[in-house]
Each structure stands twice: as C-alpha cells, then as structure tokens.
C-alpha cells in the first residue's frame, strides 16, 4: 500500500498564548496511514507524560502488527477486522500504561489524556476516541464533526438541556466524562467510516474548537485545502489570535487517491503464509 500517493498528512502543535507548556502530543505514520492526537491533563508535567505515553503506545501497538498482517484480516480474538481490533486494543493498552505509571509514581497520580485517532485502510477509516478531542470531516463544502465529545456539555446537549448555540457560552466546557489513564479500564469509542477522494479530515485538541467557531474552521479548511501546511498554520494562528487560552494541535489528512486494498487471491495467500 502506497499511502504517499493516496494521503497527504500535516501535523502542527502550539502551546498557545497563555500556557507555559504543551500537554498535547501528536504522531503520524505514513506507512500505516495512522494519525494520533492526545491532549493530556494533570499537574506539573504529568499531562505531557500522559499524552506522550498514549501516542507512543498507540503507534507501536498498531504499526508493529501491520508490518506483518493486512488491516483487513480477521482478528482472532475479536473477529473484527484487524485495523478495528488494533485501534481499540491500542487505546486500552495506552490506558493501562498510563494508569500504571500514575499508580507507581506520586507526581503522576491522577494524570490522564484524551485521544482521537484514525487509521486509514481500504478506502475506509476507523476512528477511535476518548474525551473531547475531535475529528472533523470536510466533504465538498460541508464540515461535519465525526466524533461526539465525551463531555458533560455534550451530555447536556444530548438530553436537550442546552442548545448547540447556547453551548458556546457554557462554563462547563472543560469537563470530560471519559479519559484515558484515569481508571484501570477505559471504553474507547470506535467507528468505521467510508472515505472519499477529496475529503479533508481534521483532528484537533479542544484548544482549537473552543477558540475558533466551526464556521470559521470550515472557511479556513475550504479555502486552504489546496495547501494543507498553510491551513494547519492558519487554524493555529486563528486560535492564538482569539486568545489561545489552551494548547492547540491539529492534524490534517487529505485523501488524494483511492486506496482500496487489493483483494486478489495472491494477497490472501501471502497473508496466509505470513501466519
């Protein structure tokens, strides 16, 4: 699989205008078509440690098996496609690693992180997330949020207590109801989506969507989709111009070409031999 031709990926992070350090971590892997973004939380540098562990564990846990096996192969444990199984499993492993580090070292007690991640394969994308970091899709002129925050505010919106327009005035924006590394177990939310050529995907920490309205994100992505690096820079700059109260990270993925898996009998045979 040649992702170099099919996907264009850029990633950028900034500590913002107020925070002294950056607790966000990001990683991209062009070989497997993997993008991961984590927004850490916890005292002193614990937030960076948590998000750093999350990204490192996820990349290792996903890229290693994919060197040997096809992402469409059935996973023996769960019966799901390997890509789907790996994404869920890697988030749970990241959770265990962070939880253990937090238990063993006092200065890391209670640290945690959000995660939003996507693995591209066979003209699809499997998305895994925990917390309030988001994945948006620009298709044509329409920007849509693909993930739903695990936050108190989102729960209030869901049960009709507060409208989406009013939500931006809420003082409860920063309360997440699910995070990685806080408890011994975590339930990641995993969904599979079809992708189309021309789609632009945006993964971001809440430092972006709290500072920049969705319609402005749409305007920037739509106008600048031809120059992803500039678009990433513009998104971060806009967040910082609006106050930049939090760390802000963005990963942009543009689908340039079809990347369907070859379903030939030969590929199947090779997979079978590799086992």
């Amino acid at each position: 699989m040649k992702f170099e031709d099919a996907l264009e990926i850029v990633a950028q992070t900034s500590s913002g205008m107020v925070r002294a350090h950056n607790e966000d971590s990001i990683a991209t892997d062009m070989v497997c078509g993997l993008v991961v973004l984590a927004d850490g939380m916890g005292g002193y540098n614990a937030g960076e440690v948590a998000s750093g562990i999350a990204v490192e564990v996820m990349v290792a846990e996903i890229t290693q098996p994919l060197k040997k096996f096809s992402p469409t192969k059935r996973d023996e444990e769960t019966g799901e496609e390997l890509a789907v199984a790996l994404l869920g499993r890697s988030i749970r492993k990241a959770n265990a690693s962070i939880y253990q580090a937090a238990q063993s070292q006092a200065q890391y007690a209670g640290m945690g992180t959000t995660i939003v991640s996507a693995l591209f394969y066979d003209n699809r994308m499997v998305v895994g997330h925990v917390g309030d970091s988001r994945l948006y899709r620009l298709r044509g002129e329409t920007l849509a949020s693909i993930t739903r925050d695990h936050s108190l505010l989102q729960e209030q919106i869901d049960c009709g207590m507060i409208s989406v327009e009013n939500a931006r005035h809420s003082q409860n924006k920063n309360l997440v109801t699910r995070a990685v590394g806080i408890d011994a177990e975590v339930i990641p939310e995993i969904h599979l989506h079809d992708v189309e050529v021309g789609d632009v995907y945006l993964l971001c920490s809440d430092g972006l969507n709290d500072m920049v309205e969705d319609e402005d994100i749409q305007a920037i992505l739509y106008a600048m989709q031809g120059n992803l690096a500039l678009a990433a820079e513009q998104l971060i700059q806009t967040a910082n111009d609006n106050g930049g109260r939090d760390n802000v990270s963005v990963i942009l993925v543009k689908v340039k070409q079809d990347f369907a898996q070859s379903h030939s009998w030969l590929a199947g045979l090779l997979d079978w031999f590799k086992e």
Partner: protein
Amino acid sequence: MTAKLILSLDGVFIQEYPLSKDRMTIGRKPDNDIVINNLAVSSQHAAIITIGHDSFMEDLDSTNGLSVNGVPVKKHFLQNNDVIEIGKYTLKYMNEYVSKTSAADFEKTMILRAPVAPLKVQAEKSGDTGLFQKSHADSEVKTEEQPESPPQVDAVPVQAAAPRPVTLAAIQILNGPNAGKELDLVKGLTTLGKPGVQVAVLTRRPQGFFITHVEGANFPSVNGQVLGGQPRQLQDHDLIELAGIKMEFYFKN
C-alpha cells in the same frame, strides 16, 4: 462563588438568593425556595436548575408566564446579568464565576470522575474542586501558570485578552466585469479565487490585514511586488493584482 438571584420590585432591592441547590423553585406558596407573595405569581411558577457553573430556568406551566430580558421564554440558559421578569417583580441572575475566573483557570480540561447523570452533580460544589479527580494537582498548576511576566511565545506578541480590533477594511475591484464592486472584509478569512484552482486569502488579525497565497500557478502581487510563500501585511491603498484582476485595499475608518 455561587451564582445568585437578586429579587427587586420596581427597581427596589428586596432580597438576594444564592443558587445553593441543584433545583430551586420560585412561586407564591411558602414551600418554594424563592417566595413571591403576589397574585400574578403561580403557586409554583418556575424552577432554576444548576449544574456545575451553569444555571437553567424553566417555566413550570405558570398562568402568567415569565420573560428574560423582555423576551417571553419557557426554558432559558441563564447568562450573567440576565433579568427574569415575573409579573412586576424582577430577578437578576449574577454568576460571579464568569468574571472571577481567569482565562487560564477555566479552559483547563478536567475529568469528571464517572459518567454521572448530569442532575446528580452537586451545585453546592460549583467553584470548588471536590468533584473532580486530581483537583489538587490542578490548583497547583494554576498558581504555577500565572506568571508575572507575559508568557514567552514565538508568535507575534498579542495580549491574550486583547479585544478584537474594530478596524474595518474593504477591497474594491478596479477592472474586469466586476469593476467597481466593493467587498467588506468582515470575516476572519476572505477567499479570492476558487478552491482547488487558484486561491489567495485575506486574513484579519489583531495586528491588521494580511494577504497569503494558498494555491495555484498565479501568485498575487501587492504594489507590483509578487508575493512569496509568506503572508504580507496590507497597508491603506495597497494595490493587489491576482490573475489579471486589480483590487485596491483600504481602511474604512
């Protein structure tokens, strides 16, 4: 830190009520938390529901209804300084959390320990941190993160709380079929050209307006100087040329 309601009649202060419970009722009967003994008020007129730092008001099918800031409502998400009218009485909603909290405080992501049902959240605890895991660590971070000197950032120095500049600017097209047409630069980003083909953008930033080449074979020029990959700040009466179209940039005030 708790939000409060200030009851007045004809502009005369009567009483102050801290929103100390998850749910507080307003009505004529004495078993309400806020009692307004007036025949225009229903026995149970309205309720205020508080979750964390947010309060919502709901009309409990009252006979005469209620309005917020002059607009009749059934249900309303209260904002600081909202004025609720019930008959001739007014209740002003004040939420000091909004003004007292520094930017750095409330943007800090915190974990709500378990996915509790929203209504279970204790309103009494609004403001304090008993609710949240690792709140101790957080409060330490807050003090640590309020530096005396402005934070060191590599970007252009901007005051974090600086208000948006009120400067208005526009471009006027000078030639071609649309000559004479004026375009106000009211948005943060104005696109020139067509995405996927030829695009330059005009961005409004606290320090002024900038033009940036995004994609396409034609690079815009400003006063005859062709742009590189970097944004260029625009001055009053700059002449922009893009793919044969000439435009003038100017400030409107």
